[in-house]
């Protein structure tokens, strides 16, 4: 049985508790960004793009065995690291679970300003889009 959305969030919060300065925190995010597998070119379509003012985010969603899966990418490495965390938390759960999920880990880690910068990095729009997919697939399944 895989972990719930909140269990994954709590793990991430725990991971970040190890860092006591901004540098190690951001080095870790950059590392996550580097390790995150790039989205296959065929999914980097105009349809999957979420345009921020500064960086781009691509989001690809598909259903597999009642679970909603996400793959994503960004052209900026820190956003890529943040995107990888959102994917880690939300991907692989049922649309119902994703739709009703409450994401608190960004705030707890102290990264909520990146979600607030709606126009600049597309991260907030990405999160909204992930939920929208969940609600859409939920409707299809019902």
């Amino acid at each position: 049985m895989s972990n719930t959305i909140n269990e994954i969030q709590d793990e991430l919060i725990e991971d970040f508790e190890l860092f006591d300065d901004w540098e190690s925190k951001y080095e870790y995010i950059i590392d996550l960004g580097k390790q995150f597998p790039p989205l296959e070119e065929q999914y980097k379509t105009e349809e999957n793009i979420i345009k921020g003012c500064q960086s781009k985010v691509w989001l690809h969603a598909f259903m597999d065995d009642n679970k909603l899966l996400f793959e994503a990418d960004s052209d900026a490495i820190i956003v890529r690291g943040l995107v990888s965390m959102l994917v880690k938390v939300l991907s692989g759960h049922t649309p119902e679970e994703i739709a009703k999920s409450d994401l608190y880990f960004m705030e707890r880690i102290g990264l909520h300003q990146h979600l607030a910068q709606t126009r600049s990095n597309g991260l907030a729009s990405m999160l909204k889009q992930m939920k929208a997919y969940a609600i859409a697939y939920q409707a299809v399944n019902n």
Partner: protein
Amino acid sequence: MVGYFFIKPRNMPTIQTDLNIEAIRNDFPILNEVVNGKQLVYFDNAATTQKPRAVLDAISGYYEHYNANIHRGIHHLAEKATSAFEASRRRIQEYINAPQHEEVIFTYGTTDGINLVAQTYGRAFLKEGDEILITTMEHHSNIVPWQMLCEEKGCVLRVIPINDAGELLMDEYEKMLSERTKFVSVVHVSNSLGTINPVAEIIEKAHQVGAKVLIDGAQATSHLHIDVQALDCDFFTFSLHKMYGPTGMGVLYGKRELLEAMPPFRGGGEMIKEVTFERSTYNDLPYKFEAGTPNIADVVAAKYALDYVASLGKDAIGTYEHDLLTYATDALQSIDGLRIIGTAKEKISVISFILDGAHHQDTGVLLDQQGIAIRTGHHCTQPLMRRFGIPGTSRASFAVYNTTEEIDRLVQGLHKVKKMLG
């Protein structure tokens, strides 16, 4: 200017200047802010400058002592507010050397001024097939209003090209001019590159074919002397918030005969002489273009921003900023893999750059963590970024309160960014 080649003691300016930078910094309370645990370094001055105490006091002083609606009231406060409001107009007239104070129209900012001209002069006097010239380095605010007009009227928008240094190709400009050219709208100083355009020459050439010229002075007014009569421009528009003044107000200067001939922009109170349900007659200049209650507090405070600049001396500021630009250009060029975008011979204190292997947003985020505020992105000049084949840049822009120590911190900060992203 040998000063800055020496190792300097801390907190001493390394640039020779008659300005007391330490005292100037004390005039700007916000510079004491601590960001992410570090003393703020504010290098986003091309977006908006910080405001000196005199301007802050003028705003609160207005609200505390003489807030009233202007021009119509007969009571003491209304008279005092009206006098202060009109004093600001005359101060701005003097600042840009406009012949008459009625030619100084208050707007919400540079963008508003350009829209006003496009929507009134443009709609009234431009027609199908007429050509409007802009440059490759325009801000979106000097592109989109003309595109909207072209769509409506069938005018043709043409773009003056630039070279790789970010300078206008004046030969190409001359070739583009013809009897079809009816309007030229050009940025005085590029917000993305810092390039100072030869606007006097541009205006003269445009006038030779009978075209009218608007100068977007948003980035120019805080750094350069502006004399609209010497320039002979038909319109000049700028914002006060980029020159130590408040946000939400700007100025459109226009030659009187043009402003008189133009239809009004917005309808409402203040801009009318008489209203009946059948028709209205319009007020005289400048009120014809100032419908509704204006941004009185900020207009009043604008005068204090100009007085502040004058108290330091425009020339001294210009020289100091130029020295900061030279210092920063040398310092940034010493960083491996850093390329400056915009290397025009004539520049204001703006440096756009790209760092090999670093997305500009990552650069901005990591500098912010170090308390350093720069601007990253396309700077609302997407066509210009396309011309250089880049998605955006990082941009540091300097004002009179910045120091070489802060530039040193930027350089150290960028070394850290490189290390972390490398």
